[in-house]
């Protein structure tokens, strides 16, 4: 099953040595691009070494694609250099903004999904894709606020963004679950309606109740194991649309590497089960033109 989508792990510096040595079947790693678009030194060297043994995914968090300030050309140049150097299987960013008055606001901020916003984000995604010489995937955000002024449902917005720019979509199932709980809607209906043929990657992560407001506000905290209802959303998507490269994200309260690897093995098994249940249908459905993890894995995984 070399060509089937497999499960990956978000990688933090604390786990580099173990990640480098790990030989789990189909294992790939995702890093935040910003942590590695440095001039030189160990951060770059480590990532090169990991990239020689495992497929890589670069996940950007700071390009501020929905921001109204000009794109940070220097940052884009650094990302492009990293992409040239590492040839990652996947590159992704967020449907969010994070810059104002020249400052970086370290979060993924929401905005009203207006027609003007759609045209603006599409133009910036196109600029990024041109700078990188490849398509990227755009991730659905987690929501905490009810905003006025939406002119598009999120799914329709993302589908149209993908249609206009050729970008693929990164479906974060924890974000779907958290958002449905926080601002209303059905997570299951969202997953069922998401344009599966455009999905090049799935994210899974843990969440927790807000310390002040309790369970009526769930925080996309990335500091806990994936919750059962989020696993259910993965089963639901895979049963409908087949497996996709699926990532376990953990950005805080890092457990030992083995603990993350065990959680990743659950995802890996679910993807395989979904593929088996779908008979002989090819994994790369017509219409998906990006170089996805499966093809990359076939070329680059050592054994």
């Amino acid at each position, binding site marked *: 099953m070399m060509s089937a989508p497999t499960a990956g792990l978000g990688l933090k510096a604390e786990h580099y040595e173990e990640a480098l040595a790990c030989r789990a079947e189909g294992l790939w790693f995702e890093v935040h691009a*910003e*942590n590695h*678009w*440095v*001039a*030189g*030194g*160990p*951060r*770059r*060297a480590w990532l090169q070494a990991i990239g020689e043994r495992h497929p890589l995914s670069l996940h*950007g*968090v*700071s*390009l*501020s694609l*929905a*921001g*109204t300030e000009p794109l*940070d050309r220097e*940052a884009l140049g*650094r990302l492009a250099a990293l992409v040239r150097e590492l040839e990652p299987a996947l590159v992704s960013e967020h449907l969010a*903004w*994070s*810059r*104002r*008055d*020249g*400052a*970086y*606001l*370290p*979060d993924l*901020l929401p*905005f*009203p999904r*207006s*027609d*003007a*916003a759609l045209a*603006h984000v599409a133009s910036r995604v196109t600029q990024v894709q041109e700078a990188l010489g490849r398509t990227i995937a755009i991730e659905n955000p987690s929501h*905490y*606020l*009810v*905003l*006025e*002024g939406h*002119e598009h449902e999120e799914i329709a917005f993302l589908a149209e963004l993908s249609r206009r720019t050729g970008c693929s979509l990164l479906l974060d199932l924890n974000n779907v679950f958290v958002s449905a709980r*926080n601002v209303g809607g059905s997570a299951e209906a969202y997953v069922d309606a998401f344009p599966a043929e455009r999905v090049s990657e799935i994210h899974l992560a843990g969440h927790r109740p*807000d310390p*002040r*407001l309790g369970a009526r*506000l769930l*925080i996309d905290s990335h500091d806990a194991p994936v919750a059962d209802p989020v696993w259910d959303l993965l089963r639901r998507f895979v049963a409908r649309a087949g497996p996709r490269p699926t990532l376990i994200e953990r950005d805080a309260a890092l457990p030992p590497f083995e603990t993350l690897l065990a959680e990743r093995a659950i995802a890996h098994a679910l993807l395989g089960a979904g593929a088996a249940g779908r008979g002989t249908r090819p994994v790369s459905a017509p219409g998906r033109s990006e170089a996805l993890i499966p093809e990359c894995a076939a070329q680059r995984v050592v054994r």
Partner: protein
Amino acid sequence: MSSLAELDAFQRDFAAALRGQPACSPAGAALAAQPAFAVYRNTVLRGGIDALVANHPTVRQLVGDEWIEAAAAAFFDVVPPRDGSLAGYGEGFADFLDRFAPAAELPYLAGVARLDRAWTEAHLAADAPVLGATALAATPPERLLQAVLVPHPAARWLRFAEHPSFTIWRRHREGQALDAELAWHGEAALVLRPGLGVEWRDADPAALDFLDACAEGLPFAEAAGRIADDAPGPETWLGGLLAAGAFCRIDIAPGERS
């Protein structure tokens, strides 16, 4: 129909609310009044604080979590990150500590913050080969005097006029006993990254004057002329600088530096 100006106004109001400034519009005020708005405010501030604290581990050891987080929050207010890569966040934190009233009782602290900063800069700097003593020896003396020694991109050099900040810093970094006697005088230090690991050593102040001159692009003879008459000459410390990885190359013809 919607316009980009509306999106811009929304982001202006949102950013102002994140900073705790009064809203520019009723819509902005309503947004900031939602209890969940605090999630964004907390995440943005926490992102800045965590990055700054992570980049100043020795300051943190000296003052504790509560103190450095309060200082980081105050710093974040006046110097927010500009770069999406928070790995380098914190330029100017030592200068901030120089004026930060609660730090007045710890006169060596800003120096320790400068060393933490130098470590971060060395860690993230461009890679370059190290100029060794043999390459220097292979250059005819008359050409060497007119050549420029180019400091290594990862090399940082620091002076502490009155306080032993370097000794305090290195005792923490090296896990040495912290209660040993301290000689209370100024120091000079080098922080370098000749390979992948950051290294440090104490230095002769004259060697730092020489490095300053080299960084300005002065040829060897002029750089050596910068050293005070009563200070030890290059024969005393140049070999040590080269061995530590302070230079990356010799530019034989002046003016061809990059």
